[in-house]
């Protein structure tokens, strides 16, 4: 009788192992925090005006009117003396730049993680859902036609103290993403492969549009467009930090609560649904949050490539693909790497700065190729 064939459940005698993510996660997170803090301090300290870590801490504490504790470890003395030039360099020039860099890096990397999770494809990046293409095109549109066709609009925006190009980039990115999302949604279900294809089509359309605009543009405008397309943190002001911060913070905080949904989604959409995940709502959240995060980043700093693609990979190499660690890890590593890349962009050449997007691509692309070659045998990129 079949009812006699009982399943013998063997009692587990071996020591129960926890998952690699659980085992390594806390240590990796601590390491990433240390990297973030070191790269932040280095970014504030290194440049034409040198500022020591103890001076940075003293300046920051004085700024918020907190008395510095007295600590002496070798050359590190709190409170430290500093000059007004050093103080000005920190509070007016470097701090806003570094803070914006941290936010942009965190936003790009976390959005990359979400997009890769939703597409179940480690080669996806935020650009795939049209944010960067749409943003670059509308930025170019405003750069080239802002004084002629759209002069009324840009005058109006300027009156309200809104710079026309960043807002055009932000809205352009969001609108394009929404368009792609609508294109791929039929009867309330979003087809991820259709989104991918629509994204590719819209991106090349945006590229063609930018090419067209360039043929009408003068030399300065072409230069501005190039700046946008390669990203830069030159001349970041507190005002730009203040206008960008709300969008980035509002978008990255909810990302931390999508880990379980994204993990389940990696098993497949039906499987995720069977595990109790509202798949459609998760996809909406991913698209909305990444569009906001990347849109705000692009509008503040132009298109900075490779951060959204490479950072999630680096974090997965360290903790595996569990989003409960990959999302916070990407936020930390993205922030740290972006300010480090900006540090390099500022200081590698003596005179003028290299564009930030050039640095991230110069480091990111070869590294990515290395990952591809290394993982060819394993059959899967993690």
């Amino acid at each position, binding site marked *: *009788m079949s009812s006699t064939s009982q*399943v013998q459940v063997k009692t587990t005698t071996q020591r*129960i192992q926890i998952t690699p993510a659980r085992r390594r996660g806390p240590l990796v997170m601590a390491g990433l925090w240390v990297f973030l803090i070191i790269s932040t301090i280095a970014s504030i300290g290194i440049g034409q005006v040198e500022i020591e870590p103890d001076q940075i801490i003293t300046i920051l504490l004085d700024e918020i009117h907190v008395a510095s504790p007295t600590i002496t470890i070798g050359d590190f003395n709190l409170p430290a003396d500093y000059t007004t030039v050093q103080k000005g360099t920190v509070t007016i020039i470097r701090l806003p730049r570094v803070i914006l860099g941290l936010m942009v890096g965190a936003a790009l990397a976390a959005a990359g993680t979400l997009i890769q999770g939703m597409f*179940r494809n480690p080669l996806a990046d935020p650009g795939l859902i049209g944010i960067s293409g749409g943003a670059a095109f509308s930025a170019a549109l405003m750069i080239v036609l802002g004084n002629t066709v759209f002069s009324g609009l840009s005058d109006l925006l300027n009156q309200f103290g809104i710079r026309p190009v960043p807002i055009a980039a932000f809205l352009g990115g969001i609108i394009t993403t929404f368009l792609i999302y609508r294109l791929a949604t039929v009867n309330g279900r979003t087809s991820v492969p259709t989104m991918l294809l629509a994204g590719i089509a819209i991106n090349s359309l945006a590229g063609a549009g930018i090419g067209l605009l360039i043929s009408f543009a003068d030399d300065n405008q072409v230069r501005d467009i190039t700046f946008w397309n390669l990203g830069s943190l030159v001349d970041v002001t507190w005002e730009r930090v203040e206008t960008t911060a709300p969008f980035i913070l509002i978008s990255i905080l909810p990302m931390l609560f999508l880990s379980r949904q994204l993990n*389940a989604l990696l098993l497949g959409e039906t499987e995720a649904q069977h*595990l109790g995940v509202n798949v459609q709502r998760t996809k909406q959240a991913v698209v909305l949050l990444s569009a906001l995060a990347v849109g705000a980043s692009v509008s503040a700093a132009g298109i900075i490539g490779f951060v959204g693609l490479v950072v999630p990979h680096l974090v997965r190499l360290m903790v595996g*693909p*569990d989003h409960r660690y990959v999302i916070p890890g990407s936020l930390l590593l993205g922030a740290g790497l972006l300010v480090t890349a900006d540090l390099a962009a500022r200081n590698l050449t003596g005179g003028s700065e290299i564009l930030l997007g050039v640095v991230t691509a110069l480091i990111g692309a070869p590294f990515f190729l290395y990952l591809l070659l290394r993982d060819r045998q394993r059959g899967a990129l993690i």
Partner: protein
Amino acid sequence: MSIEAKDLTVKVNRNTILVNQVSLTIHPGEILAVVGPNGAGKSTLLRAITGDIKVDSGSVWMDGQPLEQWKLGERAKVRAVLSQTSVLSFAFTVLEVVLMGRGPHLNGSAETKRDYAIAYEALAAAEVEHLAERYFTTLSGGEKQRVQLARVLAQIWETPPNNGNRYLFMDEPTNNLDLTHQHRALQIARQLANQQVGVMVILHDLNLAAQYADRIMIMHRGEEVITGNPCQVLTPQYIEPVFNIPIIVTQHPTLNRPLIVSTA
């Protein structure tokens, strides 16, 4: 209390009907096997009953409530579905994959020791304990299938606190499996049924269905041919026209079950 599907119809368009007016009941404590040739509509029927695809007409009730009124999270605590395909391409370890089956029970917090213990029991039941630390992406097709089985087992391992029913759907669970593990998968289904889990399983092998199922439904061209216990259903009268192959039904040498032999 059971899962009841009433007059389910699924169409691609007006002329192509995948499932036509099929009704069935999945009772707790029994295995219902659905058999039929390729393209008979078995998987479509399963996906309609699990709510994965929209039906053109008909309804599905689970424990007295229409399926669509169940919250996704609540449904996932008592009902698991093992599908045929596996798209996971990220390098999770086997243990991590099986722990995902505990997801519906976590309410957003981390897995407890109990969840780990259940995951290991499920791994042991599916005989993939030794693969716990391996990357899922590096496994063979059959090993992947067994890990997915362990994942759905972990999902409905425990009786719900309110002593409610549990259900398991399996779409060709024996695919890619060797003989031992084909039987293993169905023995697990049998054991769950003995614990009052209602199981619906799609099978290709009529003899496996004969050996393990309490009731069998034969499907052909989107329609129910007959449903009944193995001895009633697995006869040349029903099998030969549907599968278009001559057969002899005899008795299994040791089990009180029919045995189907092809004479083609």
